[in-house]
């Protein structure tokens, strides 16, 4: 919940990028609101909405109170496991984890780039 305002801010920023004339053009042509939202607004807001959800999910999953809330008691949580590995594991393990992290980010960025390329035609 703490990160919900961030998602709202990101959503509002995306909505602010909409030209007012797009909705006015829809009004001039009698395009129903549901159709305008479905064909124009939702596809345009989709990428930023997905980014908001991802960002909030990432921040929430790294938040200790969220982890404690969701995680069964008595077992080490994922963030705790990661911190333990980073602090105590051999250097090679930490390096491997960093590489995996970099690869994961590259995959996500590649998917976003592919999606944006398709969106912009």
């Amino acid at each position, binding site marked *: 919940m703490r990160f919900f305002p961030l998602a709202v801010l990101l959503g509002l920023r995306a909505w602010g990028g909409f030209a007012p004339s*797009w909705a*006015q*053009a829809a009004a001039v*042509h009698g395009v129903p609101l549901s159709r305008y939202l479905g064909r124009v607004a939702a596809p345009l807001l989709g990428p930023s909405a997905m980014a908001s959800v991802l960002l909030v999910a990432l921040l929430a999953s790294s938040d200790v109170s969220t982890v404690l809330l969701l995680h069964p008691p008595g077992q080490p949580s994922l963030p705790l496991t990661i911190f333990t590995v980073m602090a105590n594991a051999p250097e090679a393990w930490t390096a491997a984890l960093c590489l995996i992290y970099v690869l994961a980010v590259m995959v996500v960025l590649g998917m976003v780039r592919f999606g944006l390329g398709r969106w912009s035609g």
Partner: protein
Amino acid sequence: MNPAEFRLEGISKIFGDHAVLSDVSLDFKFGQHTAIIGPSGCGKTTLLRLLAGLDAPTGGEVLLGDQLLSASGHILVPPHARHIGLVFQDLALWPNLSALDNVVLGLPGLRHARSRVRAQALDALERCGILDLANARPGRLSGGQQQRVAIARAIAVRPKFLLLDEPFAGLDLVTKDALFDQIAGLCRALGSTVILVTHDPAEVAQLCERVVVLESGQVVEAGRLGELLQAPQSSLLRRFKAHQQA
């Protein structure tokens, strides 16, 4: 509804404490292309938006034929029921849709079968000479091609009045001339009447028989451009005449 003429009677429009239009009365006859010209901020676009039904007048009435469209703070007839096509200043093309889909989405109000809507959209694109770009999105088109898509979307509904809000700003002279010729041909073929908003008197002669000059929210003069230039009342036409003579 008899779309013989658009009429503005005693129109005023006030934003906050700023009067953009003051007691404007005008008529736009069907079949007579008219240009509204004036310096930036004189109320041209506001006037066009009142005609289109995107804004309601603060005072006065907008009529189409004998039907009341808007009156003092109320829009009584929505834009899509006014027999108009509108090309916005920024074109307002939906960026995630192809040229064809931009035109198709503008047609559902006609409640036609899907194939008929598509055929009508393709016909509009062909008339504008961009049928081969039907599947391209606006971001991939040049400025002139985007203008043509916007015009195709506007004429696809076969409007009685085609409202153009400075749609050719930023285009080179050759492209602009070609578009003017194309619009003139389309209007002849479809029986549409142009109401053009521009700040450039040179554009008027290419398309419009009549010109209305606005300054500070009021009509300073109206008539044929050639006649007005003989004894111009507005500073805009006086300056234009001086440039022509120089």
